[in-house]
């Protein structure tokens, strides 16, 4: 076990384990346990009058699933209860921009 100044490093300090900290625009940085994950936010829902089955199939079932920056929803369910739209790198878990989902301002690109 790695030690620094005679103290064993925690799993977090060794980089094996982590708690995501999401910087809620309303409440500030909070643990991921306060949030519910809402999945991919880059899929555009087709217009409700859309009758093309392919468009709905693609929206409901297909995902880009990038290894890199991912645009996703998080619901601050035990905080302000806002839906957030979040840029997070799926390789490193680093967060990019975070905004309220209703503003619809973010894109998958950084």
């Amino acid at each position, binding site marked *: 076990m790695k030690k620094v100044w005679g103290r064993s490093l925690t*799993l977090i300090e060794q980089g094996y*384990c*982590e*708690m995501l900290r999401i910087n809620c625009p309303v409440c500030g940085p909070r643990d*991921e346990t306060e949030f519910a994950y809402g*999945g991919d936010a880059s899929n555009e829902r087709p217009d409700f009058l859309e009758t093309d089955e392919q468009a709905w199939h693609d929206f*409901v079932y297909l995902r880009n*699933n990038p*290894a890199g920056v991912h645009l996703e929803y998080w619901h601050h369910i035990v905080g302000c209860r806002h839906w957030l739209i979040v840029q997070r790198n799926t390789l490193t878990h680093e967060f990019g921009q975070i905004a309220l989902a209703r503003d619809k301002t973010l894109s998958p690109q950084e």
Partner: protein
Amino acid sequence: MKRYSAFRVFIEGLTGHEGWQALWRNPEPKPTYDVIIVGGGGHGLATAYYLAKEHGIRNVAVLEKGWIGGGNTGRNTTIIRSNYMLPGNTMFYERSMKLWEQLSYDLNYNVMVSQRGQFNLLHSRTGIDAARRRGNIMRSNGIDADLLSRDEVQRRLPYLDFSDNARFPIEGALYQSRAGTARHDAVTWGYARAADTLGVDIIQNCEVTGFIFRDNAIVGVETTRGLIRAEKVGTAVAGNTSCLGAMAGLRLPIETHAIQAFVSEPLKPFIDTVISSGEVHVYISQSDKGGLVLGSDLDGYNSYAQRGGLPVFENTLARAACLIPGLSRLRILRQWAGLVDMTMDGSPIICKSPIDGLYLNGGWNYGGFKATPASGWCFAWTLAKDEPHEDNARFTLDRFRRGAQIDEKGMGPVPYAH
């Protein structure tokens, strides 16, 4: 390749153990093969093995970006079982169980299959009703299943929490006696050795970076070790299927998530079976070294990082301690995470892709390890005959369009909920 036997061990013992060979060669890639399998995990190696053994296709390369045994094959909780309920899953996983039962003999390699049984604990009347239905479907398909009462479970597993104030009262269990565990590293090494013996080239440190197209069909792969051509390319890279799919221009019904496993400090033997609970969602077994092997939920957000988060760490151990109060002071020795393809219905994909020359094997969700033999067997069949075997005929990509999802848990297209 010399066969393993007790006699060989005896002879080697007399001659200083100098006659053992490497389990597989380390060949340079040839410019062309009949079939290329991308991914040198259990599924890819099993596919190559059954291609050579069952279909006589021996000019096969298995391309692995890292080293054999460095990916998901060594990142699971080693449980094997066939307690599936829906058409498509039931007989596929039962084929896998039957292959497991003969695998050590088949491969001439001890994969340490231990059919120690699995108790799927039930905590409510509705749980018992659902388990009775599942058990009856299993039995009507010739798979063993027994619905055990609370008293019977208490007799067999007295260390579970049967107290009046148990957080999860135990009302019974659905028991499969042929379920159990297998040694995951040995499965990879055994398949690699057996495939290599039949002439398959296992090429490590060879990452696929793109596909070679001719007339909209795939005729080979670009790799970090040069171009390699083949009329048929199969992918068995669960966790990264979307990335390879994107190289071929496919968008797939898959999200990549991390799932963790935990191993405790070694204890004296006390859990001689596999204990799981679908309602609490945790599974526990004890390895031959004495460590308890535990697992539970996904981390819950898309991830390609092979590491896990603390909330699942805490939840898993809390759940285990709820079921077995004696574990409350257990210390965890090791923890790791593997990347899994979560599909939109929780069931796998083994099929010909919409692109000629490309075949997909992926979407294994939590269930990849137990499926290893049948996955390789069915994928080899699909590659060799250009059509699915009956057992994987439902694992297609177009099942979502046709409304023919195989959603064992009934969660809908929410991958992180399966």
